[in-house]
Every structure is written in C-alpha cells, then in structure tokens.
C-alpha cells in the first residue's frame, strides 16, 4: 500500500510521460483488437458465404449413384446431421434472349431435390426474388449477379443446354443471393428430376450433400461416415483447403505484424521508466536513507510501470470495442463494393481479448521490471550524491 502511495504520486507528477506511455499501450492494443476483429469478421463472412449454398460434407462414393435413397435413410441416424440432399452436378450453357439480343453464359448446374434442399440449406432464406415452387418441374433458380447481368425478369423463359447437347426450356422461378460472388454469377439450381432427365440418367445422383447443425463438426461426421459406413466423402474444409489456409496465413501474419506495435509500446514504457528512475535517483537515495528497503523501492517503480500499462490496456479495450461497434453498425461506403458485403463484419471473442490483455501485461511487466530492478539496486550514498 505504501508503495502504491508513492507510485501514484510519481505518475501524477510526471503527467506528460505517463500519458505518452498510456497512449502507446492504448494504440497498440486498439490496433491489434480492431484488426483482429475485422479479420475474424471477414473470415467468418467468407466462410458463411461458401457454406450458404454449398454443403458441409459431400458424399461422392460410387455406391451413392444408384442406391442413394437407401444410403440416405441409413446415415440419417447420425445425430449431427441437419439434412441430406441428393444432388447432380454438371456444366452447361445458358441461353436467354433479352431486348438487346442473345445472352449466353456457361454455368454450373446443380440439380437438387428442392424440398430437401430447402430444409437442409434454408434455401428459402437465400431467395431474394420470386419464390420456391416445389411443383414446377421446369423452374430454374439463378444467382442474383447472373440475373442482373442477363437483365431478365421472374417468369421469363430461357434455355439450358446440357453437355449432351440436350436443350431444355425452363422458366426463371427464383433468384438467390448466397453472398459469394462465384455462386451468384455462375450457378443455377434446377429440380433433381429435371437434371436427371436432361442428362439421360435414371434415378441416379452424383453425390449426397449433407448439411450439419454445426458446420465445424464436419471432420468428426466425415470420420464416422468413412469408418462406420465406409463412404468416401469430402468436407467443406477439404473442398476449400486453399482458401482456408490462405485465410489462416493472412491472419497469422497480421497478428505477428501488429504485435510489433505492442512491442514498440513496451519499448516506450521501458524508456519512460528508465527516464523516471534516472530522474528519481536522488529521491531513491532519500527513501533508502529513511529505511525504505530496496525491495520496496523496486516495487514502487514496478507498480508505476504496471499502472501505466494497465491504464493503457483498459482504455485500449474500451476504445477498440467502441471502434468495432461503430464499424459493425454504420456502413462504410468504399469497402462494401469491393468485398461484396453490405457492412463490415466484426467478430471477436472474449478469449482472444483475454489472450491479448494477458500478453500485454506480461510484456509491460518485463519492460518495467528491469528499470525497477536498477532502482532497487542503487547504493544509498551514491544515489544521494548523484547530481
């Protein structure tokens, strides 16, 4: 308590120095938390878009082709599964006549059991124009970007050409928005039966798409499918491995770079504490002459460093949470058009903040412990004679 009494006085007496130290820590911690929050948010946004119309596990085993119905019933018992969608994937050409002429575009054709897809993927929520019609065998659902590009309207007729050169007339029934540009520009969804007809297939599918209650359990379910049911499958993580590892690399590099700012803040504290100890050499001598132990002297200066650091950390946390709140709730014009998102996504966990705070405290402690040790080591007479 006595040490705190002295330390407090020193800090208030040296207002400018203390403020610079606090500012250093505040800036460091704010930059790190805000950038981590935005990066987490962008990552999550990217993953969500990928997952929006993609499935979590894709079962592509050869057994699936013919006997998908039986298999579907078999694996439905796995607890984590939210829904299973039989799917045919293919490539094709889309032909449409608008007022300016012919519009042709290569597309990725996904033939879904629409009813099941609606249940498993919440397809309904992705539809931004038109609506899902389960009875319409000749309905086609196209992405929002493609829809805009084609300058089409709901109810318009278009032709889908299969790889077998089979031309099928379809009617635009709905427009979906996944949030992932690739899907929104290049993907079309048609009913499974239509796809089977178009590709001259009987009751066959190319894969079973599984959606989970929690997409992050994909690995676990994937292992069950392989070990228990002997089904070859790929998780969304496997399918997007490049993208995910790029995201993770980007995040690691960012954290490392911004941690340097915290190191600079620690350096600022180290310099300020050294200055303070130097200025107070005579006072240290006086205190030692009064019988204040060298341990107490050390504690005084350590406390000063920690008080500066802690104040900076607390202000930094409030400031970064404030900035993140503003970013989350107010649209920034420039950024939205680049990233194909409507608001800056933000995501930060208490765990991440705690780790940052803890690391900061350690760094601040290390940078104040050396000057404090130096202060405690001073000989009384030498300190008193210091000019």
């Amino acid at each position, binding site marked *: 308590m006595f040490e705190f*009494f002295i330390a407090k006085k020193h800090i208030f007496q040296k207002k400018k120095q203390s403020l610079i130290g606090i500012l250093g820590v505040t800036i460091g911690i704010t930059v790190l938390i805000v950038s981590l929050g935005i990066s987490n948010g962008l990552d999550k946004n990217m993953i969500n878009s990928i997952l929006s119309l993609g499935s979590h596990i894709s079962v592509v085993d050869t057994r699936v082709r013919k006997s998908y119905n039986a298999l579907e019933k078999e694996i439905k018992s796995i607890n984590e599964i939210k829904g299973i969608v039989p799917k045919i994937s293919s490539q094709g050409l889309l032909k449409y006549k608008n007022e300016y002429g012919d519009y042709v575009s290569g597309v990725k054709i996904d033939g879904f059991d629409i009813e099941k897809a609606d249940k498993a993927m919440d397809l309904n929520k992705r539809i931004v124009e038109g609506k899902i019609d389960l009875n319409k065998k000749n309905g086609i659902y196209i992405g929002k970007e493609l829809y805009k590009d084609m300058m089409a309207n709901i109810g318009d007729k278009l032709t889908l050409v299969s790889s077998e050169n089979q031309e099928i007339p379809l009617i635009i029934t709905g427009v979906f928005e996944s949030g992932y540009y690739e899907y929104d520009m290049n993907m079309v969804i048609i009913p499974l039966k239509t796809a089977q007809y178009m590709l001259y297939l009987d009751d066959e599918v190319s894969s079973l798409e599984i959606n989970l209650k929690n997409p992050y359990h994909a690995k676990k379910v994937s292992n069950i499918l392989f070990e228990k049911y002997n089904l070859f499958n790929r998780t969304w993580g496997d399918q997007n491995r490049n993208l995910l590892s790029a995201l993770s690399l980007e995040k690691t590099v960012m954290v490392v770079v911004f941690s340097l700012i915290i190191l600079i803040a620690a350096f600022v504290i180290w310099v300020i504490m050294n200055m303070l100890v130097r200025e107070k050499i005579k006072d240290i001598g006086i205190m030692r002459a*009064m019988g*204040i132990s060298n341990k107490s002297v050390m504690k005084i200066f350590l406390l000063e460093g920690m008080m500066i650091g802690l104040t900076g950390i607390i202000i930094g946390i409030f400031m970064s949470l404030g900035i993140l709140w503003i970013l989350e709730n107010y649209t920034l014009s420039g950024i939205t058009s680049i990233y194909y998102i409507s608001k800056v996504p933000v995501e930060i966990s208490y765990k991440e903040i705690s780790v940052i705070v803890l690391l900061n405290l350690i760094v601040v402690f290390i940078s104040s412990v050396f000057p404090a040790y130096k202060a405690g080591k001073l000989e009384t007479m030498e300190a008193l004679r210091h000019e």
Partner: protein
Amino acid sequence: MSNILELKNINKTYKGKTENLHILKDLNLEVEEGDFISILGKSGSGKSTLLGIIGLLDNFDSGEIYINNNKIDKFESNNIDRLKNKDLGFVFQFHYLLPEFTALENVMIPCLVQNFSDKKSIENKAKELLKKVGLEERYNHKPSELSGGEKQRVAIARALVNNPKIILADEPTGNLDEETSEDIHNLLKKINKENNQTIIVVTHSKELANITNKQYFVKQGKLILEK
C-alpha cells in the same frame, strides 16, 4: 550510562583510479544516550563519510558498529533498513525532501513505511511535530514553496517522526543565513533536552559546535576530543 552507539576500529578507503584514499583509520567513538555531539574538521577530512557510516548509509572496509549494544551486520539488510527507519533520524545539509509530496506527507513517510494502515494517527503526529518546529501554517506546501529554513525544519520534523534514539545531522545549517541557523540550533538543543534524544552533528559552524556537549575533530582519519 550505557553506550547507545559505539564504533570500533572503523576503516574506510575510497578507491580511486590512480590511488586509494584511506580516509578513516582505526577510528573509535563511544556515544552515551542523551549526548549532543559535534564533529568538526576540514573539508575532505572525512566527517561526512563518518556520519554516513554511523547512519548505516555507507559501507566501511573493516571495524564494528554497535547500536544499543547490538553489533550491526552489514549483510542483514532487513535489520539495517529497520534500524535506519526506527532508531536513526537523518538531517542533511540540503534538506532532501521528496519534491512531489507536501511538507506533511514528507514528515509522514518514514512512519508510513512500517504502518500504512494507521494513516490518521500518523498524520496527527506529523502535524504535532510540524507545529513544534513552527510550521503549522505550511502543512500542505510542497518543498518548492518553502524557504530554506522552513525546508530544513520540515527535514528535522521528518527525522523525529519515528522517535529515533539517535539523530544525525550533516551540516544542517550550512546553507542557511545566521538568524535562521540560530533557530535551527535552538531547535536541536530543545530536542536534545526535552526528549533526551542523542544528537550527532557534523558542522563547520562554531556557534553550533558551542552549544553541543562534546566536540570532536577529525584529523588524519581519527577522532580527537576537544571538549
């Protein structure tokens, strides 16, 4: 009467780059409780060094120090800190007050080290002492707002706050005008008489030396009793 302080064969050498300076040579001193002693000597004779050694602020090469008949072990730093805090009060030539604290806080600090929770009664005691040295109007003034004499009186009040057995003063009036010096002399005399506290002063001032009971001179590293 028992000796409150005893020095036996103290040696102290300052090590320089080219030659060593043997400043105290087998120095002996016995001080009884209630003594008022002055130590005189030329500049550089080693009187301040001696006071530093008595006050346990400085190291010495060989010899023994007894305070209250207990031998001081220079490696027992906790014990030394406790003695410095409780049994010894130091008054320096240049007041040496902590600049960021008020007069009152400066007086309180040596007491707060041991017993921080009892702040209120320490404050009352410090106020009483400041009143005694005539500074009841200056409790909340910082050292920079006090005159030289006032600072020195605060320093004396600080030295007294823990009721030390021995008060050590290193040229306490060396920096003050005659009139103020006389005030300080009277104050020291009064403390010595009223509280029976032992006082050892190092001084150049004849006036101060004349009011003490014993006068020692430091000559060639030894103490010589003059009076």
